């Protein structure tokens, strides 16, 4: 082994710290922006209470455009924006910009899909009760789709960890970066395996927590 165990631990700790900060920032933004965006896309659809063809088409198109650009290319494409927002194009903070954009679009689409699963009859019943659009959103739409929203959130978080490895390529740091630098460029296979094992454990953990929460939210 070309360098000490202590050094490896330090590097791993740093890398996981970077990954957590990248994923943390972008998953938070996915929640904050993805849910409203998915909701907007849903309620502006035909036959719903805020029907608006323009918003529906433009919103759907924007989400699809972002989702069709391969992440590596998106990473490079938004570099000017990253520079302007963060003041740098290197480091976890900079990598969080393309990650956030991708995860907002990704989660918004999953939110939309979950909302489509809500029984229209229940929405109609709430409308017939005299509920306002906001009351329907809070008491019916978000509540009834909660299991789906949680499952989608889990999927987004797991995908983000994968994307964050790619962010390492443009100097984002993180676990993926560590694996590539040591495992690939320096032929330190053991380090690569160690990071991969740790990633598998992390993903498994996130998935299990998500499953438990989704099951608890499901009352049917």
């Amino acid at each position, binding site marked *: 082994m070309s360098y000490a165990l202590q050094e490896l631990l330090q590097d791993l700790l740093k890398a996981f710290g970077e990954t957590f900060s990248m994923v943390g920032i972008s998953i938070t933004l996915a929640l904050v922006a993805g849910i409203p965006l998915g909701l907007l896309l849903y309620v502006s659809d035909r036959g719903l209470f805020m029907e608006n063809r323009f918003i529906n088409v433009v919103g759907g198109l924007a989400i699809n455009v972002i989702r069709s650009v391969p992440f590596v290319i998106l990473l490079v494409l938004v570099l000017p924006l990253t520079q302007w927002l963060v003041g740098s194009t290197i480091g976890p903070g900079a990598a969080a910009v393309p990650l956030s954009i991708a995860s907002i679009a990704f989660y918004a689409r999953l939110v939309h899909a979950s909302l489509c699963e809500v*029984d229209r*009859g*229940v929405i*109609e*019943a*709430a*409308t*017939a*009760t*005299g*509920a*306002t659009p906001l*009351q329907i959103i809070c*008491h*019916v739409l978000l*509540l*009834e789709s*909660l299991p789906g929203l949680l499952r989608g959130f889990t999927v987004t978080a797991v995908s983000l960890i994968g994307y964050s490895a790619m962010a390492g390529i443009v100097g984002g740091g993180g676990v993926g970066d560590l694996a590539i630098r040591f495992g690939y460029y320096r032929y330190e296979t053991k380090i690569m395996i160690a990071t991969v094992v740790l990633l598998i454990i992390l993903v498994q953990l996130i998935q299990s927590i998500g499953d438990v929460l989704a099951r608890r*939210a*499901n*009352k*049917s």
Partner: protein
Amino acid sequence: MSELNSMIELNDIHVCFPSAKGVIEAVNGVSLKIEREEVFGIVGASGGGKSTLVRTINLLERPTSGTVRIDGVDVTAFRGAELRGLRLRTGMIFQQFNLIQTKSIFANVAFALKVAGTNKADIDQRVSELLSLVGLSDKADAYPAMLSGGQKQRVGIARALANSPQVLLCDEPTSALDPESTAAILELLKDINRKLGITVVIITHEMAVVKTICDRVAVMKAGEIVETGSVYEVFAQPRNEYTRQLVARTLNLELPPRLLEGQQGRILKLHYRGERAEEPVISAAVQQFNVQINILHGRIEYIGEHPLGVLIVALDGHAERVEEAVAYISSHTADVEVIQ
């Protein structure tokens, strides 16, 4: 808000939907008056526009043209807060119950009260009242998935009544229920109508439902009302061919063909409607004309308090005498149909 106004007045309602094959006219020029505190049925086959029609009353479906008046007020153009106010005064229940699966029974009913801006203490009290009214006091903490169909519909009813509406709209309320639950739910609806004086509009494809609880009924076919009248009138003397078919199917007045085989002489179908007793006519015919009268089939239905019956009899004997007997029976009963 005068007592002279009908509770619900629909005037020349049209509802059109765009579709791949052009415009579909789901409701085609319907005018109806539904009076205060009555139970009004709208009956017809599925796809006949009944559900669309009832949804124009609380404007879940906006009529393409025509006006909706509730308690004398034209509500057709209501939007926003005004429309929500109208909906607080008109409860609605559904075939598939449409409860919020992720809310408890208590919370489902409480939601309707929260929408009306009721405060927390009043909500608690009112929900217990409502759950006890529908007989579900012990299920407050259960979730909809844990209840039977009949119980779910009771929750639907409690929710619909939460804000003390003047009108209760029921869209096929018993179509997803077994016969026992159907009877119990209809009983409950009738009870609510009597005790609370709420006008009930009930959409159904089952004449049996109409017979059980409605005062008046409109028969709807292909987006149009083909007949309106008191339930007794419609059952006793259906004027429209479609209504006749519906009634015949419900009352099961058709004679099995096997019974008609090998019958000699005349076969008559007598309808009696309570006010005219048939028995003396038959026995008088037997004595007077010396014919044999054999009862093949008989059935009495009670619609509300009024009996509605049918008797199928075979007359046999001397041909001339039989004809005289037929003429005599015809002239002494409300409605006679000569089958053979």
